[in-house]
């Protein structure tokens, strides 16, 4: 087993990996950018080294600096977390070159899965079901029109190197195809330096369901159950659960077997996730493979009783999987809420800044993986994931009510968070009925961003307003920090909400 591991990441996932290492008796090495000196992962590690300025390109993405720290500190392995360098085959190769174990798959597997068309070709050989379409880039508009005619409209154009919605176009008719293809290709070229675009049948209202797999370096591969990840906004997952409300044991086994086939076809090792699109008839199609630990791995941990990070480390150190497929059983239900620093009242703008008050939930059925603390200044330079709140219950209903209770206890002041969004989702009738697809969240938000208050009856709101007013007065009297006439500011915030556009918010987080 390794004696020391470097964690090439920050935030909640760095803390999560540090905890696993401490549990396994492994010393930890943190790296941090200039704005992360006081971050939780630095506080919790055994060693910590600065690697550069705030922008990730100068620090968390700098392979040379990270490998230099590994050398200096004597770390024998590197855990990349998710995002940053986690799916960078070059980094995995660079680790191998200097004799540091990369905790993840081989560079070869990562490269194969890095290109969507290459992965499709490989999976086609292995007999994996995927959405009808071409497995190669379109050479001409004519080729595209022909393929679209064969598979039937609507079709989706996708960048081979893509992700995060870039280089993607939904095309409904033959007339639209040519211009859509041109713009997809140029966007793909701009975004990824690769204009390759292929075509797929567009699945109407698909679900996004993924299967966790784990493979050791001795040829054993197992699946650990699916995660329902259909609740997304701007191609960004917001809430995930396991099991999926629509997957029964037979479908789970079939998906699991396909996922294992995918992993084996790629000679995959360590933890990985096979993503599927699922149509309304519950047909599932291979979408892509994520060659790293996912943000949402805790829901699988809670329903299987396993610790995926422990297992990642054991696999990387050469151990065999300590259990067989037949030992894996799914019990209960788990739901994860991604607590983001963003403002639900203002079109989910990012909201970095200082956390002035933090009340955190705990108790039965609640797991909290967090990278924040009261007094911490959330930097503006990274993605806005602050923490994950995961509820577990005997069944889905109990997981929901436990999360509702925990969200009620969760309070963050100083910055905005999306906590109220989860309260909306969890009490929504469609969500409770499990009627989900990737358009679900946009539809919910389109209903109007009602504050939670607006659902309460009017007299109750008035009563609570009275309480709020009395409380304001008592705070002023009892708590010396309270400023009276604080609102004398003539400027005020801009009264017209601006529109935010996403610009490649970390695909890593999907």
């Amino acid at each position, binding site marked *: 087993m390794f004696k020391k591991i470097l964690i090439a990441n920050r935030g909640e996932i760095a803390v999560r990996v540090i905890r696993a290492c401490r549990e396994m008796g492994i010393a930890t090495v943190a790296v941090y950018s200039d704005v992360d000196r006081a971050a939780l992962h630095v506080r919790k590690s055994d060693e910590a080294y600065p690697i550069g300025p705030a922008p990730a390109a100068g620090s968390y993405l700098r392979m040379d600096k990270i490998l230099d720290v590994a050398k200096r500190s004597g770390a024998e392995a590197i855990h990349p977390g998710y995002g940053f360098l986690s799916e960078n085959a070059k980094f995995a190769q660079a680790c191998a070159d200097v004799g540091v174990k990369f905790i993840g798959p081989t560079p070869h597997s990562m490269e194969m899965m890095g290109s969507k068309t290459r992965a499709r070709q490989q999976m086609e050989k292995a007999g994996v079901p995927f959405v009808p379409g071409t497995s190669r880039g379109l050479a001409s508009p004519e080729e595209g029109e022909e393929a679209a005619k064969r598979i039937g409209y609507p079709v989706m154009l996708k960048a081979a190197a893509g992700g995060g919605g870039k280089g993607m176009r939904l095309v409904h008719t033959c007339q639209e195809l040519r211009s859509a293809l041109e713009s997809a290709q140029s966007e793909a070229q701009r975004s990824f330096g690769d204009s390759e675009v292929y075509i797929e049948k567009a699945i109407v209202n698909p679900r996004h369901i993924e299967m966790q797999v784990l493979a050791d370096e001795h040829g054993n591969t197992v699946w650990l159950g699916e995660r329902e990840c259909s609740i997304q906004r701007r191609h960004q997952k917001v809430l995930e659960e396991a099991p999926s409300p629509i997957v029964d044991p037979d479908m789970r086994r079939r998906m699991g077997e396909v996922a294992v086939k995918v992993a084996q076809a790629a000679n995959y090792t360590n933890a990985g996730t096979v993503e599927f699109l699922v149509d309304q008839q519950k047909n599932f199609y291979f979408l892509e493979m994520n060659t790293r630990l996912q943000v949402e791995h805790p829901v699988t941990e809670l329903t299987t009783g396993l610790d995926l990070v422990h297992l990642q480390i054991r696999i990387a150190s050469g151990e065999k999987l300590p259990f067989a497929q037949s030992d894996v059983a799914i019990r209960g239900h788990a739901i994860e809420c991604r607590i983001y620093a963003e403002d639900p009242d203002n079109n989910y703008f990012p909201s970095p800044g200082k956390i*002035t008050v933090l009340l955190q939930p705990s108790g039965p059925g609640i797991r909290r993986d967090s990278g924040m603390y009261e007094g911490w200044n959330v930097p503006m330079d990274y993605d806005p994931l602050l923490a994950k709140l995961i509820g577990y219950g005997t069944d889905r209903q109990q997981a929901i009510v436990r999360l509702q209770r925990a969200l009620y206890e969760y309070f963050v002041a100083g910055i905005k968070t999306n906590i109220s969004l989860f309260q909306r989702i969890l009490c929504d009738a469609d969500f409770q009925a499990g009627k989900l697809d990737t358009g679900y969240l946009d539809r919910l938000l389109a209903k109007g961003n009602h504050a939670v208050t607006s659902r309460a009856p009017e007299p109750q709101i008035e009563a609570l307003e009275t309480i709020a007013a009395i409380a304001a007065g008592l705070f002023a009297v009892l708590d010396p920090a309270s400023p009276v006439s604080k609102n004398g500011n003539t400027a005020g915030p801009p009264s017209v909400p601006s529109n935010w556009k996403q610009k490649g918010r970390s695909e890593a987080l999907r």
Partner: protein
Amino acid sequence: MVYEIIVGGKPHRLELEKAAGGWECRFDGQPVHIDAVIPRRDVLSLLVDGHAYEIKREQTATDLHMWVGSTRFAVELRDPRSLRSRQKAAGDEKGPRKILAPMPGRIVRLLVAENSEVESGQGIVVVEAMKMQNEIKSPKKGVVKKILATPGAAVNPGDILAIVE
């Protein structure tokens, strides 16, 4: 202690007087007995006629909010003895308007030049934070009198980015 408190858009008068086992209050003239404890900074435990409320206070540079359970209320609080009075920004449609940074971030680019005419809702400047780009828009039709934002510069919430008149 007397306060004028605006909540839900309506002004209220709150009188507080320390009494045995709590506070004798008058809220818009109505007497209420309140038992209040601050278990920790910015958290208040209120008992009103047996009902228990945990209220959290959130203060920003510009706003004061009370969270009663999970429900947030914007509150304005004035001590009538204080000389300061609040200048309403509303109704200010005619004069020059400052465009402020809504969060910390970095200026990515300017979308207009000084002295150009802009429509209401037209983008003025792009600010990036947490891997997202935010187009800050003009609150009114008019002329961009001044641009204070510089591409590449860091901004803090409340910093003036531009002035539209």
